[in-house]
């Protein structure tokens, strides 16, 4: 029994860390993989999601519904941003980085101005279970399950639907896709607002675990960016899964032994070393390995 509890505790720690990294990075990854741009306003979109959920929750809306609402609200905000601003920066990575940073500054400082520095937070839903002498938060177990579901849903969306087919075509060869009648403009709009919506959804899901403030986005972006950089842009879902698994193996022991801050420092160092070895990220290395294997077969 004791051994099972310890084992479960280790798995629990690894899984929650990995799902935190995945949740924080999910929206970013979708946009990066599709349009090859990094959305620096990602943290602020998560903040908008968390605010939407919090405001609705305190109006008496049940928590799961507020999460859905956060997805819809932030996806719409993302669509507006894409139409007005981001659309002009496709193919211009550094320009897109800078302009989305401007957006992030306006969103966070604007929220501070309009809604003030504090917000009553959401209590963590559901309780805890204990196995042996350890107790585990049920909410984090649910989050891990939701993250897994989201990844599966994204995989299905990209691999089994017509929209997903168009999206993959646009991702690989935009001009050919356009020549074959795919409205790539609309695919970009949909992808950006899907990415934004996922950021909002993650923000709402993580809202009970953090304090709600205009600058709360900052704590997510470092892990999110590291996950994405380590994962690379070749096959984003595989990259993100690999990166979050690998990084949680770094972060969990360091964070457990030396504290959360040094856990994050270890993340940065791990990222530096991994990109020194695999400059295009895990997914590119994985892809090369797969290509070589398929050639041999």
């Amino acid at each position, binding site marked *: 029994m004791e051994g099972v509890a310890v084992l479960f505790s280790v798995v629990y720690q690894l899984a929650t860390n990995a799902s935190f990294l995945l949740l924080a990075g999910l929206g970013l990854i979708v946009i990066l993989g599709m349009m090859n741009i990094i959305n620096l306003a990602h943290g602020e979109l998560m903040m908008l999601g968390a605010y939407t959920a919090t405001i609705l929750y305190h109006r008496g809306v049940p928590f799961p519904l507020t999460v859905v609402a956060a997805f819809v609200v932030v996806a719409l905000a993302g669509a507006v941003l894409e139409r007005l601003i981001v659309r002009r920066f496709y193919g211009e990575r550094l320009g897109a980085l800078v302009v989305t940073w401007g957006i992030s500054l306006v969103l966070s400082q604007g929220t501070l101005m309009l809604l003030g520095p504090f917000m009553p937070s959401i209590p963590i839903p559901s309780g805890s279970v204990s196995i042996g002498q350890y107790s585990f938060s049920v909410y984090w177990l649910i989050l891990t399950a939701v993250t897994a579901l989201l990844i599966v849903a994204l995989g299905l969306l990209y691999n089994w639907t017509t929209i997903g087919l168009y999206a993959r075509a646009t991702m690989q060869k935009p001009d050919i896709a356009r020549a074959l009648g795919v409205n790539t403009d609309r695919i970009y709009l949909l992808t950006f607002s899907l990415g934004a919506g996922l950021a909002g959804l993650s923000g709402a899901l993580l809202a009970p675990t953090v304090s709600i403030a205009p600058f709360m986005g900052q704590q997510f972006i470092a892990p999110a960016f590291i996950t994405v950089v380590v994962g690379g842009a070749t096959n984003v879902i595989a990259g993100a899964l690999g990166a979050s698994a690998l990084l949680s193996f770094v972060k969990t022991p360091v964070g457990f032994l030396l504290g959360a*801050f040094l856990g994050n420092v270890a993340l940065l160092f791990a990222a530096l070393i991994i990109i020194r070895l695999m400059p295009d990220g895990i997914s590119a290395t994985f892809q090369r390995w797969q290509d070589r294997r398929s050639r041999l077969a």
Partner: protein
Amino acid sequence: MSRYFAALTGPNEIGHSSAFWASFLLVLFGFAAYPAFATEFQSSNVAYYLLNIPLALGLCLLWGYGGILSFGQVAYFGISAYVYGIIAGNMMGNSWGPLIGSIGGLLASAIVAAVFGYFIFYARVQNWIVPILTLVLTLLLETFLGQTAGYQWRVGVVQLGGYNGMTGIPSFQLGDLVFFGYSFYYYVLVVVVLTYFACRMLVNSNIGRVLLAIREDPLRTELLGYDIRARQWSIFVLASVLAGISGILYVQWGNYITPTQVGLAQASLPVIWVAVGGRDSLLAVAISTYALNWLTYTLSSAGYQSALVIIGFLLIIVMLFFPRGIIVTIARAAFWRRIAERV
């Protein structure tokens, strides 16, 4: 001598006509004469707008001339500032402490940038990864400095102070000559003008030309026999030393620093100064840095909380409508009009 002058008027920076140099000297003279008409407080404000210029020039070299975008220049600003504070604070009473502190601060920035830059540039990462990793470094530095509040976080007699910041940092001093008030103003002015001239010579030297070549076509430059990794790495280190100069001037100006100075909002400011002025020109960046610092200061001292929102909107608008920067766009328009008149 003429070689140096040729480097000053080379093609990689705007402003070559005698009218330009005349007005440049006039403006310089205006700055030199300013304290005669202004109070010590006003001079100190102007010194603050000026002292941010080396930081912006460093980013301009890196981004505009080198094509490498860094969001983490404030990290080096902060490292130099804190190290200066630690060294000079511990050597309080020694009249050469501040000078040793300044050198130590710049060295610290250079070392951190050298190690960090080694991993980035020698890995040949894609160009969008550099801004992300530099931003992460900044975030971690802010988190680290923010949690150094306790009494155990002290180096010698100097406390890091967490979010309350490091206080009582000594002013700059050379022997018995202490720089504060008017003399600090002149000290900043001299440092900033020298930095500008040095950068201007650099971009018109061979190093600058290779840098531009790397920005335009890295592969071709490499095939011509240049080690682009070493070139990018060294310009990254240089830019961080320039950021360090601003950091040291900042703590010598205000005698304190808090982790907010390396925070995310601060990190965005140099990028905005450079983008708004026009990253292709050192002078445009220097002017916009001065103007935007003045604007931010005026807005926030008038009680507007919206200063950063306005600056953020300004960045978005500039990126949408003047992607080359406002000042560079105007300068180019004027240049082409002159050409058209001559034809």
